[in-house]
């Protein structure tokens, strides 16, 4: 399990994942060699899987992001698997979550503009198998997105 030092390191690291090691060590109150050893141990244990770059899609011309909330036809036992396999084939789908709740699956879909979104929605999304209901939330503004955890 993690001790207080590990948690302190992760707390500082998640707040600034692009910080140089020396500065991270200073913020976490450990020596650079302790930092390197602790991070290596957490990687070995699989607690720390890596540092992911987060693509800012509007900079690449994808101005629109939509959350599609999907209910599936659960009378078909293979509905989840077949829907997800098909959704993976749509390159503009950047996230897939499945849920316990009033909706079954969420797809995050990006598009260049409304015309492109309309094409995707009609040509690639509504044609996915076993959809019983689908509802869209259009993203207006990302207010908080750091995805840190309260360690």
């Amino acid at each position: 399990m993690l001790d207080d030092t590990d948690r302190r390191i992760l707390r500082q690291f998640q707040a600034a994942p692009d910080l140089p090691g020396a500065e991270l060590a200073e913020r976490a109150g450990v020596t650079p060699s302790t930092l390197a050893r602790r991070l290596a141990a957490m990687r070995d244990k699989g607690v720390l899987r890596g540092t992911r770059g987060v693509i800012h899609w509007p900079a690449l011309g994808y101005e629109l992001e939509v959350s599609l909330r999907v209910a599936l036809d659960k009378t078909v036992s293979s509905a989840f698997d077949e829907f997800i396999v098909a959704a993976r084939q749509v390159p503009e789908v950047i996230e897939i979550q499945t849920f316990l709740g009033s909706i079954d699956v969420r797809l995050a879909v990006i598009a260049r503009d409304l015309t492109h979104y309309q094409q995707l929605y009609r040509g690639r999304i509504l044609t996915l198998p076993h959809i019983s209901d689908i509802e869209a939330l259009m993203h207006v503004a990302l207010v908080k997105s750091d995805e840190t955890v309260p360690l």
Partner: protein
Amino acid sequence: MIDLDDTDRALVLALAKDAGASAGSLGRELGLSQPACWRRIQRLREAGVFRKPRLDLDLGALGFGVTVFLGVKLATKGRVSLEDFERAVSAIPEVQIVEHVLGAFDYRLRVVARDIPDFERVLRRRIMTLPGVGRVEANVVLTEERRPGPL
């Protein structure tokens, strides 16, 4: 908007997997010299292709067993400013993502908690007491995958 060639696209994908990869090692993989690779990475960063990177942590191993997506509808628009709601909800440590959306809800939130009772505590004490909160819908995440996107 920045134009990408095939090498740039490969670089964006590689940095999305490992934001800390060095220009030297990425250059070796892609057949570029270290300085040429570094210049391309700089150009991508300056064009705003990346947001702040995020740590990929095994939340279960850290004691966070539950992730919940919430849809929040404001009850008293006009009386409570969106800024007040956004400031208050962003200050909750368990809330990882706050996004202003258009559709059946006004905001979508991503919340982490230790377990379902802990989530209920966050929901009742922190979220339901926010200024202006109306209808809230909770969906517990069972599985999640992030896709590479249309590059």
